[in-house]
């Protein structure tokens, strides 16, 4: 049971306070919390669940905004954190994005939303579709509408029909002029590669994202060509679990708009699409570095937005790095970033240079970790393939679209 929710700006200012129970939580708790953050240096470094002298605090940070919840009673911590994350998601959905100004401009909406999302400290609903029916988002359409009709309220005056319907995530009488549904496979590859090039760990976390604009109450069936490769899957509440258990078929009535239908993991992949080979050698106070990047396993589609980033060890005084392709930048916090973009056909990109060590230090004794990012459109590297999507219960033939995308998640190469 949460007692209070605060929204703090990135300077620690209280932007919003929502008391949830009779027990009033004093604002001074935020000051205490902010002192903790300052003493830790960075809000992201602070443990999400901490105990203050008077309350237990949960914090979730999104786009520089801290969502802080307080309680004095025992409760499932994941429930609190998950709820705060949902609040953040819903707010950014409503406001377009999240930042200090947006929240300050729309605080009335934020209050209204919080009012419907949680009562007396117990979460009620965080389903965006239901909320949208209760409180209209402050978008241009509604503004135009309000001018035309003269009705300035941004609260829809009907109660959500869905709360009573058997499909709580969808209202019954949706109408779209163009019926369309898009299914995206979005995968992230997490990998750790050791200095000798061995693949320590490589797995894929993927999501099936659906954007649906369908009229009526459609019934969709999505099947994969090779569902057996999935290690574990989690589903949106709309997915019927029986057909999945029996035949690995996703059968569901979709919510309207964008939603995450399913998330999955594929373990133990054998190779990565690109290789990054760093080499460091040092003696008598200088260190030579060279990094080679190339395609290891051609995925068939072009790999773009390749960047290699690493933190120069603190013992390095200066660095002189250059690349035969792309640009190298060294930022003030000693982060070195080499953006390559696409790998050219005729040459393998490489970066080389020398670094001067601290006086007194002969050899380099800490080795940086190289973080690699890339993006491949059109391919799901796990190999997961959508077999077909059937739609039932629809007045007209809809348009179906499929896309796939793989990007690097935590892709690290050690040196």
């Amino acid at each position, binding site marked *: *049971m949460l007692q209070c929710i605060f929204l703090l700006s990135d300077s620690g200012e*209280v*932007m919003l*306070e929502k*008391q949830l*129970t*009779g027990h*009033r939580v004093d604002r001074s708790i935020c000051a205490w919390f902010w002192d903790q953050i300052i003493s830790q240096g960075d809000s*992201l470094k602070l*443990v*999400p*669940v901490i*105990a203050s002298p008077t309350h*237990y605090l949960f*914090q*979730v*940070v999104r786009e520089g905004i801290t969502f802080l919840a307080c309680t004095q*009673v*025992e409760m*499932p*911590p*994941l*429930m609190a*954190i*998950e*709820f705060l*994350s949902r609040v953040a998601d819903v707010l950014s959905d409503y406001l377009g994005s999240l930042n200090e100004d947006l929240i*300050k401009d729309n605080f*009335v909406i934020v*209050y209204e939303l919080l*009012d419907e999302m949680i*009562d*007396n400290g*117990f979460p009620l*609903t*965080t389903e965006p579709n239901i909320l949208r029916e*209760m409180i209209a988002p402050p978008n241009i359409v509604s503004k135009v509408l309000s001018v035309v009709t003269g009705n300035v*309220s*941004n*609260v829809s005056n009907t*109660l959500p029909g869905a*709360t*009573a319907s058997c499909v709580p995530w969808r209202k019954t009488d949706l109408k779209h002029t163009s019926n369309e549904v898009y299914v995206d496979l979005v995968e992230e590859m997490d990998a*750790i590669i050791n200095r000798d090039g061995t693949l*320590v*760990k490589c797995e894929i976390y993927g999501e099936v994202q659906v954007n649906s604009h369908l009229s009526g109450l459609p019934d969709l069936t999505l099947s994969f060509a090779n569902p057996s490769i999935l*290690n*574990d899957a*989690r*589903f949106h*509440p709309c997915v019927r679990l029986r057909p999945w258990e029996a035949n690995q078929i996703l059968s569901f009535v979709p919510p309207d708009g964008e939603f995450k239908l399913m*998330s999955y*993991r594929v373990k133990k992949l054998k190779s990565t699409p690109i290789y990054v080979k760093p080499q460091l050698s040092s003696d008598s106070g200088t260190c030579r570095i060279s990094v080679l990047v190339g395609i290891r396993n051609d995925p068939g589609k072009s790999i773009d937005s390749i960047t290699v980033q690493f*933190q120069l060890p603190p013992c390095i005084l200066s660095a002189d790095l250059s690349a035969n392709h792309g640009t190298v930048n060294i930022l003030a916090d000693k982060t070195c970033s080499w953006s390559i973009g696409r790998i050219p056909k005729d040459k393998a990109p490489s970066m080389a240079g020398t670094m001067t060590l601290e006086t007194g230090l002969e050899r380099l*004794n*800490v080795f940086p*970790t190289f*973080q690699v990012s890339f993006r491949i459109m059109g391919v799901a590297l796990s190999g997961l393939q959508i077999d077909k999507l059937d739609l039932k219960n629809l007045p007209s033939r809809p348009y179906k679209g499929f896309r796939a995308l793989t990007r690097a998640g*935590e892709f*690290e190469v050690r040196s």
Partner: protein
Amino acid sequence: MQLRQLAGSRAPGTDDSKRELFKKVISYMTIGIDVSAVFSEMVMCSATSDIVLKKMCYLYVGNYAKNNPDLALLTINFLQRDCKDEDPMIRGLALRSLCSLRVANLVEYLVGPLGNGLKDGNSYVRMVASIGVLKLYHISASTCMDADFPAMLKHLMLNDKDAQVVANCLTSLQEIWGLEASTSEEAAREREMLLSKAVIYYFLNRIKEFSEWAQCIVLELVAKYVPSDSNEIFDVMNLLEDRLQHANGAVVLATIKVFLQLTLSMTDVHQQVYERIKSPLLTLVSSGSPEQSYAVLSHLHLLVMRAPFIFSSDYKHFYCQYNEPFYVKKLKLEMLTAVANESNTYDIVTELCEYAANVDIPMARESIRAVGKIALQQYDVNAIVDRLLQFLEMEKEHVTAETLVLVKDLLRKYPQWSHDCIAVVGNISSKNVQEPKAKAALIWMLGEYAQDMQDAPYILESLIENWDEEHSAEVRLHLLTAIMKCFLRRPPETQKALGAALAAGLADFHQDVHDRALFYYRLLKYDVSVAERVVNPPKQAVSVFADTQSSEVKDRIFDEFNSLSVVYQKPSYMFTDKEHRGPFAFSEELGNLSIDTDLANDVVPAQRVEENDKDLLLSTSEKEENHGSINNSSAYDAPSYDGSRMVGALQPQQDLVSLDQPPPANTPASLAMDDLFGLGLPVAPSPTPPPLALKLNAKAVLDPNSFQQKWRQLPVAASQEISLNPQGVSALSSPQVLLRHMQGHSIQCIASGGQAPNFKFFFFAQKEDEPSTYLVECVINSAACKAQLKIKADDQSTTQAFSTLFQSVLSEFGLP
């Protein structure tokens, strides 16, 4: 001033300008400026049809009503009117605001609208009303009970079509009955009813209708349900299995808790449950934000610690990513340490060595410690020792320091490696080691292996020369002991240094250092061979190091799965105040236990210790109470209270520690103490013949902590069941009565609890003229007129006398 003007200009404004003004007022309120001055104006403007305006007004009123009860009366009128609005949304909102005013003298206006709300045709209003009842209860419990709202809620809970209404009723009822249970029999029965088979099945069958959050609440309830047989357990688990694939992590975790609790008694199924939940948990960790993965990881951590072998093939999931925050990495390291076994140790240690070279210094330290822990777990020590020694060659100060501490621990466990280690350690210049712990470790090794290290005496000598620059007392203490050891092995080379060290030690301002120097000095003067036996006794290798957290504590945390306890890695009694524990735990306590604070304060001043200490003691017995009450709940009339479980639960964890070397030492400081204790002088037992008439100290004092400690340490000296006279039992209306009686006979109570017919007491007494204490656990069943006694005593020989005395005192209870 500006606000005043705003308020003045408000009355004639149209909705639009009003809205702007309201917005301004609320934004001031949001920043924290007190705008309660315009309360009356705000209320006057609230008569509007504009719903946004209404909402802003509700918000304002909700915020300031509590401090302006008189003005709040003004709002009642329009809120009550809104409660009858034809738009259900407005009805709901008005009702919610009405309940949120929280002004005690306005509750009379609440009852009517709430009653109507509960019967409203629209589920939204019912939903608001069902939580509103709880709010009313917190403002004025009696009003709420008088209006018979709980019964209405119960009816709604079991019959309403809308799942959210049902869920809200459940949360309200749980809290209301939980709090009422202490005073009302009926509420206690109702609370039991929530856990009855019929109700639980009702919820389970509807679980898919509930929103994800309501599912969490229902699952929380189901986790407390005790099924009657294994078929039922499997039914429940089958029904809930698909919840493990829910997108909401909170639901998944709540389901896992149900599974774990249900199968606690079925070992093999429990194992299968672990296998089943492994995958969802690991997915939860890798998806979601760092905050979410941290919360999940904390739970995973707990499970891994309980059953490392199940996760040993998934060790790669616990590899740390460069970008992860330190708190996540630390948990992962601990799990890596736990899952290490024969087959994966090599991989894990290789991985850990990567972290040791990491830029992040705390991380490097932690990983070296992890390597050390794995080494102490006895897998593939050979390779690990090599790795550790490589760390020493990395020439990084923090790595060297951390490694030295570890090498020392390793040597204590595996003396056979001393040769290899010493060779490397000997090469380390003590000038490069600055951290006290590391320096102490190095000095310990220099002393312990003085005969194997060529220049040990000279290194020690140079350290002693810099005595004044050594700021850490720990290091100086070690230096003294090391030079003693060195002297006993290589006297000619060390004599001079020893003299210097003793002189410096005697002049030291630190009490311990001074005392030790003096002790050594006198010891040497007395007899060198005795000194040899004191300082340098033959040592046995330490087989197991003391565990930092007892298994009892771990079990308790496990019982509190899916709660804050897991994240803090402490059971809730260690960090929450009694009144702040969860609504359920809270009510259990009120129902079953009450420490008699005022009484204790009157008579036993020492009991005025920190509230926390009391909790610590209470909670252990409390757990028993709770266990007991669950078992006995169906059959309160035939309670055979299993007192022996108490002993089991309190068994100290010292069993884990090998007692070859007297105290469980894992720090260098206490290690040095080992040496001292190694002398092994038998403590002469004081020969006291059992006195015939036992006299008790009327002002016995014992603080709860020492009681608990003693209770753990002492064996049961006497255990018996006695009958009580019915007259006495009938006088036992509450635990306090007995306490006063016992106090009159110099037997003090330290904790008590229970409800008719089961009471439980912990007593203690002290002998008149010596600090010999008796501890008694007394479980009284007033229905059967029986009492079970368990007596523990410092002085076993007088147990019988005390037991007789205790029984006679107890039997006098209730007699005129």
